[in-house]
C-alpha cells in the first residue's frame, strides 16, 4: 500500500467564459460565427503535489487564486482539462454543509437525504439518528420543516451529520466561516479529533490561525500556480505578507482637518526597527502619539508617548521597537495621533508599516515571546 492519499499531476483547469452565454439554440445560431466566441479563463496552471496519508493539509490563497476550483477538482466534482488526480481511499467533500437540504422537508427527512448523499444507507442513519439529533441540540424540532429552522439550527444539524462520515479523506471548505463562537469551538474540537486520528484532511481556508494550529503542511496558490508549499507557519506568513503588501494604504479617515501624522520605518536591524512619526496640528491642544503592533488584524502590543510629556504643534517622535519580543510571523504597525483631552483620535498614519520575524518558535504561534527566566529546582520525593 502506498502512503499517498491524493496525488495531483500536472493538473490544469480552465473555464470557457462566453461573452454572451449561448444557452439557447437561437443564440447558438444567430451568434454563430467562426472563430473565438468565448474567453478562456485559466484558473489552474500545471499544478502538481502530493498529500500523504494522515496529513492535515491546508490550501490557502487570496480570492480568485483558484483554491476553490482545486478543491472541486480534488472532490471530483470538476474534471481537469489536463493532467490527472489520483485518490487513494474513500473521499468525502464538505464544500458546503447540508448538501441537498430541502426546506420543505422535516429535519428528520433531511437527515436521511443528506446522509444518503454522504454515503449512508437507511439502517446506518437510523442507528446514529439519536446521536445526530442530540449533538445538534434540536431534539424538539425534528418534525418541523427545515424552513422553520433558524440558520444556526440548520448548520448544527448539518454539521452533526457531516462529522459522522466514515471516510479516509475529508475535504473541507471554509466550514469555519459560519456559525457563532460556540459552533466554531465544536468545529475546532472536531478538527483536533481528526488530527489525532488517521484521517487525511484537506482544509481550504482564509483563517491563518487555523492553518498554523491544525495543519501539518500547507500550500499557497497565487494566480493558479503553487507559490509555496511547506510548513504551515511559513505558508501563513507568506499569505499574511501578501495581503499586507497588496492591501491599499489606509484611507484618510477625515478625522480632523487640523491634524496630520506621517510615519515610516527609518532603520531595520536584526533586533529592532526604528519608527519615525511626524505630526502637525493647527491648534495648540496637547496631544500624544500611540503605536500598535498588529498580527492578523489584532493588536498584540501597544505603547504611547509619555502623557506627562505632551506634544503641541509640529514635531517628530521616534521609537525603537525591539522585535526580539515577538515570535515569528508578519506584523503591521499602526501609528495614530490623539488629543489628550478625552483621548480623542485625530489622525491615523496612512502608510502601512510592517516587519517580519523569522526563526523557529517553540510555541504554537502566540505573538509575544516571553523571556527565558525559568528557574529549575529538584524536589526529592520519597
Amino acid at each position: 500500500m502506498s502512503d499517498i492519499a491524493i496525488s495531483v499531476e500536472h493538473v490544469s483547469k480552465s473555464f470557457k467564459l462566453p461573452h454572451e452565454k449561448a444557452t439557447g439554440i437561437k443564440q447558438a445560431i444567430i451568434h454563430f460565427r467562426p472563430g473565438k466566441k468565448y474567453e478562456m479563463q485559466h484558473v489552474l496552471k500545471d499544478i502538481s503535489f502530493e498529500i500523504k496519508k494522515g496529513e492535515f493539509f491546508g490550501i490557502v490563497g487570496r480570492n480568485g487564486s483558484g483554491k476553490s476550483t482545486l478543491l472541486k477538482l480534488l472532490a471530483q466534482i470538476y474534471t481537469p482539462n489536463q493532467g490527472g488526480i489520483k485518490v487513494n481511499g474513500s473521499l468525502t467533500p464538505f464544500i458546503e454543509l447540508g448538501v441537498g437540504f430541502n426546506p420543505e422537508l422535516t429535519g428528520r427527512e433531511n437527515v436521511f437525504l443528506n446522509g444518503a448523499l454522504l454515503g449512508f444507507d437507511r439502517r446506518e442513519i437510523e442507528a446514529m439518528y439519536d446521536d445526530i439529533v442530540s449533538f445538534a441540540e434540536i431534539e424538539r424540532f425534528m418534525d418541523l420543516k427545515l424552513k422553520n429552522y433558524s440558520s444556526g439550527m440548520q448548520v448544527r444539524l448539518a454539521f452533526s451529520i457531516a462529522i459522522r462520515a466514515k471516510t479516509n479523506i475529508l475535504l473541507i471548505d471554509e466550514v469555519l466561516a459560519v456559525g457563532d463562537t460556540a459552533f466554531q469551538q465544536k468545529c475546532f474540537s472536531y478538527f483536533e479529533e481528526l488530527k489525532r486520528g488517521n484521517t487525511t484532511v484537506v482544509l481550504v481556508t482564509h483563517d491563518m490561525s487555523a492553518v498554523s494550529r491544525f495543519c501539518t503542511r500547507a500550500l499557497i496558490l497565487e494566480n493558479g500556480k503553487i507559490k509555496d508549499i511547506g510548513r504551515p507557519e511559513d505558508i501563513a506568513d507568506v499569505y499574511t505578507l501578501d495581503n499586507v503588501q497588496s492591501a491599499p494604504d489606509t484611507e484618510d479617515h477625515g478625522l480632523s482637518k487640523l491634524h496630520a501624522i506621517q510615519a515610516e520605518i527609518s532603520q531595520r536591524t536584526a533586533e529592532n526597527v526604528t519608527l519615525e512619526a511626524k505630526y502637525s496640528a493647527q491648534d495648540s491642544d496637547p496631544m500624544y502619539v500611540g503605536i500598535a503592533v498588529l498580527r492578523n488584524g489584532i493588536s498584540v502590543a501597544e505603547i504611547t508617548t509619555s502623557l506627562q510629556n505632551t506634544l503641541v504643534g509640529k514635531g517628530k517622535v521616534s521609537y525603537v521597537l525591539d522585535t526580539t519580543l515577538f515570535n515569528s510571523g508578519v506584523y503591521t504597525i499602526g501609528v495614530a495621533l490623539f488629543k489628550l483631552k478625552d483621548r480623542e483620535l485625530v489622525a491615523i498614519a496612512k502608510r502601512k508599516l510592517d516587519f517580519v520575524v523569522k526563526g523557529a518558535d517553540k510555541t504554537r504561534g502566540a505573538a509575544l515571546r516571553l523571556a527565558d527566566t525559568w528557574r529549575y529546582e529538584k524536589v526529592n520525593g520519597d
Partner: protein
Amino acid sequence: MDVRRIFSHRNRALLRELVVTDFKLRYQGSALGYLWSLFRPLFLFGILLAVFGFILKVGSNIEHYPIYLLLGIVLWNFFVEATNNGLHSILNRGDLIRKINFPKYIIVVSGTISALINLGISLIVVAIFMLFSGIELRPVALAFPLIIIELYVFALALAFFLSALYVKYRDITYIWELIMQAAFYATPILYPLSLVSAKSAIIAKLMLLNPMAQMVQDARYILVTPQTDTLIKLSHNRLAIAIPALIVITTVVVAGYYFKKSSGFFAEDV
C-alpha cells in the same frame, strides 16, 4: 461502466432517498395527497367514456374502445412524464452536482422512477376497469411486462439524452414539448389505426415503425382486444418488424454515450 458499481449498495440507498423525496414533495400540502395519482386516470376514463361512448362515434367497431383508449393514453402519459422529468432532472439538481460528486445517472433514474410509480397506479385503474368490462385475459397477456420494459428502457434512454442536452441548450424543453405534441397525433392513440389504413396502408405501416405506436398497439392487442392492428399483423417483412426495437437500441447506445461524455462537465455547465 462497471455494472456492479451502478447497483452498489450506496448508490441504491441514494436513489431510494431521491425517489422518496420526490414523492413526498410532489403532493405536499394537498389534502388528498397520493390519491390524486389515482384520481387522474379515473377522471380521464370518465371523460373518454362520455366523449367516445356517446358523442364521437370513432372506433365504435372496436370492442371495449374506452379501455382501449385509456390503456393507450396511460402508456403515452408515462412516456411524456418520464422524458419530461428526466429532461429537467440534471438542471433541477444543479445545487447538488456543484457540491458533491456522485453518479449523475442516479438523478435521471430517480426522475423516471416517480413516473414509473404513477404508471403502476394508473395500470391498477386500467386493470379494475378491465375486470368490470368482462375482458377475458388470454395467455398472450403474459407478454405485457416485456412491453413495459421496452417502454421504460426507451423513455429512460431519451431522458438521459435530453437531460444532458438540456444542460447545454435551454431551448430543448420547448422543442421537446412541440415534438411530443406532434408525436401524440402521429401515434394512433385517440383514433383507431384502421382510419389511417382506409386511406393508405403504407402510411399506417410507417406509423407503426415508431416504437411508441408499436408498444401501444401491442399492449392493446395483448390486453384488450385482438382486433387491434399491430405491426406484426400488418407487415410480413421480418426486418420491418425489428425496426422499432432497433430504434430503441440505437437510442440507448447514443444516449448512453452522450450522457457519459458530458456528465463530467455538468458541474461547471449547470
